[in-house]
């Protein structure tokens, strides 16, 4: 499935959350990551995040799509993060 992860966390934890997210998803913008992921890996990602964030103050949202068939990605301005499997 395809997941978009957005987070709003206290400044001191921004880097930690980004670091965890990057292991599973591709960074696309400040506080936004996205990518193809399996259910099991998403659970792993969530549990890693839970250990690091403060559940009272921080928030992380996952938008989950079973496929990207019905969605479209439109960009204004620059595309910041690289995607795709060609380097």
């Amino acid at each position, binding site marked *: *499935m395809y997941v978009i992860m957005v987070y709003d966390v206290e400044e001191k934890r921004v880097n930690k959350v980004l*670091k965890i997210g*990057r*292991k*599973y*998803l*591709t*960074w696309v913008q400040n506080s936004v990551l996205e*990518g*193809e*992921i*399996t259910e099991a*890996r998403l659970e*792993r*990602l969530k549990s890693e995040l839970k250990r690091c964030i403060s559940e009272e103050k921080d928030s992380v949202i996952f938008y989950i799509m079973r496929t990207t068939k019905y969605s479209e990605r439109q960009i204004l301005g620059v595309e910041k993060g*690289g995607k795709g*499997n*060609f*380097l």
Partner: protein
Amino acid sequence: MSESIYAFSHGILKRKQNTLFFESQDGSQRYLPVEGVRDIHFFGEVTLNKEVLEFLSQKSVLLHFYNHYGYYVGSFYPREHYNSGCLILRQAEHYLEPEKRLVLARQFVRGALQNIQAVLKYYHRRGFALASAIGQMESFLCGLEEQDTPDALMAVEGNAWDIYYQSFDVILNDQDFQMEKRTKRPPENQLNSLISFGNSLLYAAVLSEIYKTHLDPRIGFLHATNFRRFSLNLDVAEIFKPVIVSRVIFALVNKKAISSREFDERLGGLYLNERGRKVFVEKFEEKMKSTVNYKRIGRKVSYRRLIRLELYKIEKHLLGEEEYQPLLAEW
């Protein structure tokens, strides 16, 4: 849902923030989500250190390297993570006992011939004059039982490939892409160069799948096991060459996605240049991801998955649970 990464630019691969980081020579930087990477294919130059190899080993990611001309040079094959002494013994047993080895070797050749025939029939239905080639495949298939050494089987297979490659001229009918005859090291024309490159990619892809099973890639059955290289992936690839590699080539040539501009002449042969390789790899990856209906399990599976399923069938055969029957591409 792991991805294969193809690196064409030159750069450095690092372990950074507990994930992979690729910094290319032109300054662009990319983090690769390590949890979602199956393998990385390097076509350009890459610098890496032991730290990253340790990390890749821990995460079971394979690296495949290709040289300047696009030839496969080798892999970083991390310590086996699926260890099964039992299966290795069975695999060795099936190699050492001539009758058992012959059974498997024959099945690999049968698989290749059947799929060649399926491709030929597909184009025959669409009005290409391939009846004689199909007939010859049939007679090769009938004669398989009589061959009683792996070498004899290899010879039959070689003849079959010759006839199959000859029929490329009928299917493609393109002035720029003429087969004439199969040449390797170096490939002497464009079509030969496409076949060689496609086969290299397939060998590496099969190796990546073998890594995810208990099988040992060093012990093949049709291809002799020797001191130098992996051979099981060559065996299994035979079955998939007509299904994957040739179809990618037909698609590229027929849709004019690739032309003589994508080739360079070097060392007395013709090789795909970087742009050509990119086009090829993109199409190849698209093919590997595309799905077909697989009757055995009654749902759609990707071609990459199909390779893995084929390996599981071989495991079952080795363990004596179910006799191995090669995949027949009926779609």
